[in-house]
């Protein structure tokens, strides 16, 4: 599976955002349990953690429960305090005010992606979560890949499933903790009542689920990478090299830039890495050279690269510094094409 990723958030901005968010939160933390499909066991993992926390003395309540909890889940729920939902004309809704009055340390919200009934204070449940956090309530919540806005189309293309309930990916990136609940596809289908198949991918449904699984693993890796970057910035330590591949293609007007960008793109896709294309501008560039660069940069844009034009009298120095700062693992340098 090759996934073209959206531009990554700028780490500095992300850090500032996180810090700004944190200062408003009174130490409340958000923990998200991510699954690639229903049946992986997100709710179970989450409620089991809630139970353990309660046993360790944390003040935990359950604010929202999925519609038809299984027997296993009900057994866990019996050990936990619940805030009853509000009955509205258009069905049940999480009672945000009741939770705020109760003011627990930790609130469990299952699932995260839900639209509130008309007339509610917030349109979406993830906005309720933000309100809880602003009031110092930590939240444990679960989300299915299908409900992440930026993945909706992809998941729909793979499975044909549609949803209107979605949360923005930035919400995941801003979480303090994210955990992926990963199970083999055969177990996932088995929990949904299907026959258990042999270990590995055995049929086209498992093949589909496997693609979702890969997407969910990579999304989690991305969130972990963003957290790592914030950590590194916040603690002023040396950036961590080598957690994933970052390719840098250096172009000049004369070089075989198109081939290099093409190769860089292939590498980026295969490694699920990132691609940077850099040009060091020189004052003596002619109009013809400028035009050549423009066309190269256009290809770079099409390849989904992060583009940077640097100003320096010493191109080698500039590129080396850029590579260090951006934790580049492979640099592509071209030859003069004759």
């Amino acid at each position, binding site marked *: *599976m*090759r*996934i*073209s990723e959206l531009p990554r958030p700028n780490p500095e901005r992300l850090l500032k955002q996180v810090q700004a968010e944190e200062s408003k939160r009174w130490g409340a933390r958000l*923990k998200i349990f991510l699954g690639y499909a229903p049946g992986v066991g997100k709710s179970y993992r989450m409620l089991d953690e809630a139970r353990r926390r309660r046993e360790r003395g944390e003040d935990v309540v359950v604010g929202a429960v999925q519609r038809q909890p299984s027997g296993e889940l009900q057994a866990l729920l019996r050990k936990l305090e619940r805030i009853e939902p509000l009955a509205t004309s258009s069905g049940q809704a999480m009672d945000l005010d009741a939770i705020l009055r109760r003011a627990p340390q930790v609130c469990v919200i299952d699932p995260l992606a839900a639209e509130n009934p008309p007339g509610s204070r917030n349109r979406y449940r993830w906005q309720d979560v933000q309100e809880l956090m602003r009031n110092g309530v930590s939240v444990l919540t679960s989300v299915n890949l299908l409900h992440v806005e930026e993945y909706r189309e*992809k998941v729909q*293309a*793979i499975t044909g499933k549609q949803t209107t309930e979605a949360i923005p990916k930035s919400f995941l990136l801003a979480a*303090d*903790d*994210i*955990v*992926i*609940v*990963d*199970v*083999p596809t*055969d*177990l996932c289908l088995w929990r949904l009542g299907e026959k*258990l198949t*042999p*270990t*590995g*991918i055995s049929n*086209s449904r498992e*093949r589909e689920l*496997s*693609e979702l*699984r*890969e*997407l969910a*693993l*990579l999304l*989690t*890796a991305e969130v*972990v*990478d963003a*957290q*790592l970057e914030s*950590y*590194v910035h916040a*603690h002023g*330590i040396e950036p*961590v*090299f*080598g*957690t*994933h591949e970052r390719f840098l293609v250096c172009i000049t007007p004369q070089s075989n830039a198109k081939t290099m960008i093409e*190769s860089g793109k*292939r*590498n980026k*896709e*295969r*490694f*699920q890495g990132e691609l940077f294309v850099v040009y060091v501008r020189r004052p003596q560039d002619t109009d013809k050279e400028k035009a050549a660069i423009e066309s190269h940069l256009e290809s770079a844009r099409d390849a989904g690269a992060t583009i940077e034009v640097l100003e320096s009298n010493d191109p080698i120095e500039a590129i080396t510094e850029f590579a260090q700062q951006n934790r580049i693992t*492979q640099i592509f340098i071209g*030859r003069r094409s004759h």
Partner: protein
Amino acid sequence: MPEAENAPLGKLKVYLGYAAGVGKTFQMLADGQTAAQRGLDVVLAYFEPHARPDTIAQVQGLEIQPYRKINYRDRTFEEMDTEALLRRKPQIALVDELAHMNVPGSGRTKRWEDVQVLLHAGIEVWTTMNVQHIESLNDQIWRITGIQVRETVPDWVIRQAAELVAVDVTPEALLNRLKRGAIYKPEMVQKALQGFFKGSNLGALRELTLRQAAHEVDLQQSAYDETSNVQAPRTSETSPAGKADNPWKERILIHITADPSTAILIRRGRRVADYLHADCMALFVHRTTEVSQLPASEREAVEKHLRFARGLQIETLVVGGSDVARTVVEFARHNQVTQIFVAQSQTRLGERLRSRNFAENIVRMAEDLQVTVVADRSRRLRS
């Protein structure tokens, strides 16, 4: 493994984690319990005796194969009893710690070799390991953590896996477990906090694990597509479906020398080849007419590197040639190589000023080939 030529290979399932204590063994045992309850013939072939209490609780009710006792230097060690398992022949064997190195006198050096024997006998094996034990990640792990991991498992062993499960937990929860004494004995906790559990290490190892798992899951999809004969168009693929059989089939050539940095080069080349679905071979060029004329120390080092490459399933070749750079490039051309991997030359500055260095020579001669010069970061860190 002669006896097993005709038996169908048992399947391999790997529970992959990023550190001790993430819950790999627990998850494997829990799944084993489920399988046993459903009537499958499951045997616990080995699990670490220093396991955590809640993990030990998961063992209740599972059939345990008694371990083999081995005396070594006046102490008794316990290892998995592979031969007894072959006689017992369960459907599924649960084997903790795939990367474990056996005590001398066990028959096979490494546990993954024992697992191969079980698989060849048609036994399905479920096993656990941490990301730092994957051979091709060895240098990255060293760079991230400063720790040189010695017990490694070749990538092809992991690639056999029909199923890989990422066992994930947040670093925060893991550190809590560690501090509560749920992972190591109290006297070990401080050491752990300065090692793998230090600062950003856990996050980095976790990211590597998730990406590795995604990669393995991707390979499983390719394997399924090949066997099912259905040209399932990959929805999420950016390149258009139905295109002629991979027009960019890459071939990678790794240049082997006696220099210690060759190990890094081999791992890197192997890893890139795996991701690009490329063929991979390794070449040593000797300037002497016969290999036997090389100084003993050089010959030993080269042989060690060639063995290492073969262990990672890289085809190795040895040819003679007075001009090494030219020989490498010509060989590459004759064999439709698309990428050459060479090490950064370790020549002294003086030599470099007088003549161009080796990597530069290759780049100059290779013209249309891609040359990848692999840096040896460890040198910089160590010096």
